[in-house]
């Protein structure tokens, strides 16, 4: 168990053994379990517990990191020495900053004891009901149900102490029968996880997707469900890093203060949002601020670690990664502003279009135009004259994300969405015109 007393005990053991001018220790301890099912049986069922002790030494303008999962005194001494030894071999970095002193953080817990203690028996019973739902419709179910808890602490020799405890519950299901349907949820408490609702949604998609028809590729109006939106816009997150702009590898290089998206697009990074997760401090222990990134389509702000902020003559926003690293920082808690058009209303007002459940294997084709490619998966439907007409075979798309966010016609309410390509964010469903499907598949 990693509580404050144990964290301070480990930190002091490392500090005593370290010859560094300054020492930082990041601790992470956790337990997690995951029940995996397919072909209507549980076929994998795992649990793990572990701890990471990660030490950063700063000495004479140099810094390096060493990490272990061994917490005996000898191992702690060794990891402290290793960090100093690694730092010794590098040139001095004139831009290296001293470690920050004590900081203050937003209060609030994201730890749920019920979720932390959830049992394999309870997960199995939930899976059993999901499988029974499949069998009632002649379907085959595959998916995961996982629960876990993590405690993190960051301490440094200038007196900084930060801690955070969080739990996680995730459920994902695919129903198969020729076609397939999918749904997924991810929350900080198991109470929020609507397993039966997700299962029902996936089941209905699979049934509706039994006999997909081929329609030609081309530019379509698309209605993207939140998971599809998430996995696309998730590719933008690093572009908002100050370091990415400094390195000229951001798609926003040279566009600060300019209109980059349509006026109906606004987004922020906000760790305190009720549908978000994560620690309220960054890799150096700086408090994460809420930052407006895009307001009515205009690129307003980036995020900055301390050293990036100094280089760019601004204030750190508390988004830095553990040092040393080459990436700098990134917003990890994106929140898109939503609208008030429901998915059903989007369908009802669409003359001709495609409804997309989720996207898959998305990769960046062009880093500046932000062209992404990928596939539709697990439920793609043709919409005509305000109604879902039939399932269609999957498409490959090649679409500029910048262009897409200038072509959003309608937005729905923003929700915490879970996909497979990006970490969870708060995003709305969107109706987008001229979305480019370049090829169709055989299924």
């Amino acid at each position: 168990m990693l509580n404050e007393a144990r964290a301070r005990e480990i930190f002091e053991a490392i500090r005593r053994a370290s010859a560094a001018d300054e020492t930082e220790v990041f601790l992470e301890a956790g337990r997690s379990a995951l029940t995996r099912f397919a072909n209507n049986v549980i076929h994998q069922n795992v649990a793990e517990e572990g701890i990471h002790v990660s030490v950063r030494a700063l000495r004479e303008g140099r810094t390096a990191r060493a990490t272990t999962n061994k917490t005996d005194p000898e191992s702690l001494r060794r990891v402290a020495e290793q960090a100093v030894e690694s730092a010794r071999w590098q040139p001095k970095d004139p831009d290296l900053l001293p470690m920050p002193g004590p900081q203050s953080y937003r209060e609030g817990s994201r730890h749920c004891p019920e979720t932390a203690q959830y049992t394999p028996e309870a997960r199995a019973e939930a899976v059993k009901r999901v499988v029974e739902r499949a069998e009632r419709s002649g379907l085959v179910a595959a998916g995961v149900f996982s629960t876990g808890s993590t405690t993190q602490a960051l301490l440094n020799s200038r007196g900084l102490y930060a801690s955070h405890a969080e739990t996680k519950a995730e459920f994902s299901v695919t129903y198969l029968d020729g076609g397939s349907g999918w749904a997924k949820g991810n929350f900080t408490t198991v109470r929020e996880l609507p397993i039966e609702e997700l299962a029902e949604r996936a089941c209905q998609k699979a049934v509706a997707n039994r006999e997909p028809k081929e329609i030609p590729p081309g530019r379509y109006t698309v209605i993207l469900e939140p998971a599809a939106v998430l996995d696309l816009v998730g590719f933008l997150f690093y572009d908002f890093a100050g370091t990415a702009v400094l390195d000229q590898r951001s798609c926003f290089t040279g566009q600060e203060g300019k209109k980059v998206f349509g006026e109906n697009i606004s987004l922020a990074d906000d760790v305190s949002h009720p549908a978000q997760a994560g620690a309220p401090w960054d890799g150096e222990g700086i408090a994460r601020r809420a930052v407006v990134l895009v307001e009515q389509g205009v690129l307003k702000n980036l995020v900055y670690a301390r050293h990036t902020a100094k280089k760019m003559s601004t204030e750190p926003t508390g988004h830095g990664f553990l040092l040393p690293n080459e990436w700098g920082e990134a917003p990890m808690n994106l929140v898109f502003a939503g609208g008030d058009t429901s998915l059903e209303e989007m369908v009802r007002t669409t003359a001709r279009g495609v409804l997309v459940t989720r996207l898959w294997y998305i990769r960046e084709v062009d880093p500046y135009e932000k062209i992404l490619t990928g596939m539709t998966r697990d439920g793609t439907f043709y919409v005509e004259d305000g109604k879902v007409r039939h399932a269609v075979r999957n498409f490959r798309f090649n679409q500029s994300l910048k262009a897409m966010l200038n072509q959003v016609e309608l937005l729905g309410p923003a929700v915490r969405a879970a996909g497979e390509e990006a970490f969870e964010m708060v995003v709305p469903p969107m109706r987008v015109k001229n979305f480019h499907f370049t090829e169709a598949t055989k299924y």
Partner: protein
Amino acid sequence: MKEWAQWALDTAAARGASYADVRVLDARHRTLSTKNGKVGTLSESESLGLGVRVIAEGAWGFAATDQLTREKIDQAAARAVAIARASARVKKKDAVLAPEPMITAVWRTPIDKDPFAVPIDEMMKLLFRADEEMRKVQGVTLAEASMGFTRLEQFFASTRGSEIRQTKTYSGAGLVATSFAENEIQKRSYPNSFGGQHASTGYELIEGLQLAENARRVGEEAVALHRADKCPEGRRTIILDSSQLGLQIHESIGHPIELDRVLGTEANFAGMSFLTLDQLGKLRYGSEIVNVVADARLEHGPGLGTFGYDDEGVPAQCIDIIKDGRFVGYLSSRETAPAIGLNRSGGTMRAESWNRIPLIRMTNVSLRPGTWKLDDLIADTDEGLYLETNRSWSIDDRRYHFQFGTEIAWEIQGGKRTRMLKNPSYSGITTEFWNSCDAICNRSYWTLWGTPNCGKGQPMQSMGTGHGAAPARFRNVLVGVAYAQ
């Protein structure tokens, strides 16, 4: 390690497991990188722990811990059995494993120079030298160089009596030059993208790569790409360099032959496969010159899929996957082998670390070399494109429709390599593509590439795989769709 493993096996058996195996793993990693003349990452890490996998009441359970006391190991083994009993609440039939003889063995990756004995300053000097060479090229806006090393000390034991010790060493390095100009980002990597080349070998790999010697060329090509014409759209003959072909093999042969995908157990995440069981021995996967093996043995080379024994204690094997163009084999495990009528696993189960269960993973899935010299192949091509170094990759969840982008292409006209082209891409259907292969270069051009970051499973596991390939020619391939308007 042996004592820890035995505690876990004893407890699992006492709690009612009909089968158990234990892996104790002590992992060490070193990562170094530079960026624009400064240190990017410099870190050492180690991780020691134990994972116990059991069958109880005919169902699977697994638990892992890094608290290696008698009490904690016993708790982990008992937890694994309890989890298996929970799994048994949702089962149709008992898990059955293909037989495997008891094995006692010791195996080590052969290395000439232990990377963890090489001073860090020697490594950093090499990275800084390469970094500096890239930045000497006007227009290079970002120069990055990196190295990574892993040492795994592993002990496997099972209730069948097997005891296997393995020491595996992996090394890798590479560089990338990026150029931003006029609202366009171009980059070139060496010797490959994904951090360069990676292999089961020692520091001798890095010494042989000539990173600094290639750095300036890479920078120059990144800058020159801004002035190059765009890759055309349409159907073309293409020749893939061996690194891009390695990834093509990975995505369009390596993944679809994973038997767990075929049998549906990855359906929710990684997906399934177009290679349904009825196609084994029948499907014309490629043209008659296409021969592919999955070979984990040392004889195949020092790939990231080279080992002595897999994580179920099964010896490394060479399996025919495609023979003279026909599909003849899957990657299998002890549990899945019987589904295709095999009485023994193909030995492909590997786990990322002590806290993960083994899954079917590619070993070294390689295309056998052909007979052509590269110059002759280009001379034999009237019109076409030569594509080098992967930039983007995407394939559907059944591994049937793919699209790749590469960093650079060269136009071939009248049997000669002519102008540079930027933003190349190509796409196709897996079997149509491999059936369009009409020439493969010979062993002199064959490289066993390492793919260090293949993701699979829930919880996600990252694994290194190997892919041997020589440049090869494909006819009538759709190019340029990624940038089509």
